[in-house]
């Protein structure tokens, strides 16, 4: 049984101009100890999805449908108080985008982790301090650094400290939203390595949200490609990135040239992502898709398994056997 199962989840923002359908019928499942990448561009709903799972939404957001099951327990119907006490941070935790810049500059890094532990668990101060030191060690930071301030940490260390903080209450699932986006490549590698080590050691399940295909290719087992509030392709990374079938995924893969590949012409996908106040009819990618036909404009494709096992794709033009037209973006 999956540790986390999300079914047809819908979360809309109410705005003066109407509903923004940021998460619009998302389904996926995550087995214990596995890592799922959510990849997509700005505004595709990937960060909103994370916030929905953790119920950290602004007042104008509303879950309008779907189910979230964690270890068999249904979360969407749970009251806020129980969710706060029994789920958030203790079962699912999150590393926010840019969180390393949200550390309090006038408190030591260690005390901020201790505080997180004391806020959720009935333990003595001494125990909490001890645990905070262990957590620092777990992410590869010398526990002697407990009493140092954020400005004495490098970017990569701050980011690892924030990850340690997310682990403070032994969650089973961690959601990391763009955990390495502002970091240099070498530091990024250190942080990703720390995450990989933690997963192995603690049997953590991970949802990694990123716009960067390479981060997901290197750290995740499965990937869900999001476009305009929906998953357009979903399956094992080896399948999706090596044999992308959805025209959007093909475009993304082509737009991200590998450093080891032959020098290649620059690729872009024409047009811009749609406004989710008023998404396109049919397949939401149709205005940008070179293959779009009347069916694409009128009928929304379903995310279904085609061809390879567990390779799901939402495109009318992929045959049931998984044959897809190769799209060459220029």
């Amino acid at each position, binding site marked *: 049984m999956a540790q986390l199962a999300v079914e047809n989840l819908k979360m809309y923002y109410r705005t003066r101009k109407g509903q923004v359908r940021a998460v619009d019928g998302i389904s996926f499942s995550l087995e214990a100890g596995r890592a799922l990448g959510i990849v997509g*561009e*700005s505004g595709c709903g990937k960060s909103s999805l994370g916030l929905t799972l953790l119920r950290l939404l602004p007042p104008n957001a509303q879950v309008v449908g779907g189910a979230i099951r964690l270890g068999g327990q249904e979360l969407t119907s749970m009251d806020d108080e129980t969710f706060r006490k029994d789920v958030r941070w203790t079962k699912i935790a999150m590393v926010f985008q840019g969180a390393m810049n949200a550390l309090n500059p006038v408190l030591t890094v260690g005390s901020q982790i201790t505080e997180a532990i004391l806020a959720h668990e009935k333990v003595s101060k001494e125990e909490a301090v001890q645990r905070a030191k262990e957590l620092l060690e777990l992410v590869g930071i010398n526990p002697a650094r407990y009493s140092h301030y954020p400005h004495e940490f*490098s970017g*990569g260390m701050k980011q690892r400290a924030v990850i340690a903080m997310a682990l403070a209450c032994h969650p089973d699932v961690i959601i990391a939203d763009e955990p390495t986006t502002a970091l*240099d*490549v*070498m*530091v*990024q*590698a*250190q942080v*990703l*390595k720390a995450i*990989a080590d933690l997963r192995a050691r603690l049997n953590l399940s991970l949802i990694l949200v990123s*716009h*960067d*295909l*390479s*981060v997901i*290719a*290197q*750290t995740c087992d499965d990937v869900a490609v999001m476009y305009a509030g929906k998953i357009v392709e979903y399956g094992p*990374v*080896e399948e999706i*990135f*090596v044999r992308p079938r959805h025209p959007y995924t093909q*475009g*993304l*893969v082509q*737009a*991200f*040239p*590998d*450093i*080891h590949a032959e*020098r*290649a012409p*620059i*690729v*872009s*996908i*024409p047009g*811009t*992502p749609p406004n989710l106040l008023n998404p396109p009819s049919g397949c939401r990618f149709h205005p940008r898709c070179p293959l779009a036909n009347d069916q694409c404009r009128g009928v929304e494709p379903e995310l279904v398994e085609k061809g390879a096992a567990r390779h799901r794709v939402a495109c009318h033009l992929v045959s049931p056997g998984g044959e897809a037209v190769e799209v060459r*973006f220029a």
Partner: protein
Amino acid sequence: MTTTSSSDILLEARELVKHFPLRRSLSQALRGERPAVRAVDGVGFHVRRGEILGLVGESGCGKTTTGRLLLRLEEPTGGQVLFDGQDITQLTPQEMTRLRRRMQIVFQDPYDSMNPNMDIFNIVAEPLRIQGIAKSREEMEERVARALADVELVPVEEFMHRYPKELSGGQRQRVAIARALVLEPDFVVADEPVSMLDVSIRGGILKILQRLVRERGLSLVFITHDLSLARHFCDRVAVMYLGQIVEYAPSDALVQKPHHPYTQALMQAVLSTDPRRKHIYTGLKGEIPNPANPPSGCRLHPRCPLATEQCRSEAAPLTEHAPGHWAACHHVAKALAQLQAPAAG
């Protein structure tokens, strides 16, 4: 008379230095020390007509400061910038203003680099006004329209009277490029022009820049932290570390046969998009040292696996190891041998 090889070169930086002074403590003052962040510390390279030169490095390596020095948006502490044979560091402000018609910049952040109260027409027309170029309103409109068409913001009339906030990030960056192009410069520095844009959008911007280089013989210095992008987009690439160029080569040669241990490490740290090649490299030990107090000798030595006594005491000069392939390392042969061996780590 100039030789063909030198007239082929539009801009040359020689021994460029930029130190930003730090406040000194009493004891430093008594000892006569002048502490400074040595942002750029002896950088030299040339830019040919009609080429794209990439300036690559991690944050704080001095790549942005170098770009600003090339346009004299920053006064150098030392060194020269020769533009078409003329040392621009010696020009008067008036002469410099005149020269700016030919040298322009595109900044990283398309949100911050534009006056939100000006419409697109006025943003793009501003350089024309400053330079007193367009004599009539018609001429100004014509030149702005041409610049907007160049960056594919069409239909032009539709964009001219909109405001930055009505445009997407990609469209704003096109406006920024149009503003740089309206003067028809021969030299443009683009500082991380696509790093804030989504992948599907950034290709569009890069293709516009590439087309301008190919069609007009524009020379472009492209500053980026992304070695993978530099490899695919630039003709030649200079890699910077702690205020200095450590390697400088045609982009294919740089990636296929990196000579400097730093370039090698940087290359390995770039994650592959191919999930079948799983490899997270955490190679170089430690982090980038403080540029106010750089290591002696070769600046990479405290982190370099090949460092010897010589590296600790003696800086390695940038030398040509293959035609057009320069590297600043005492142990290039060892570094190359290490490249042949199966990658460790």
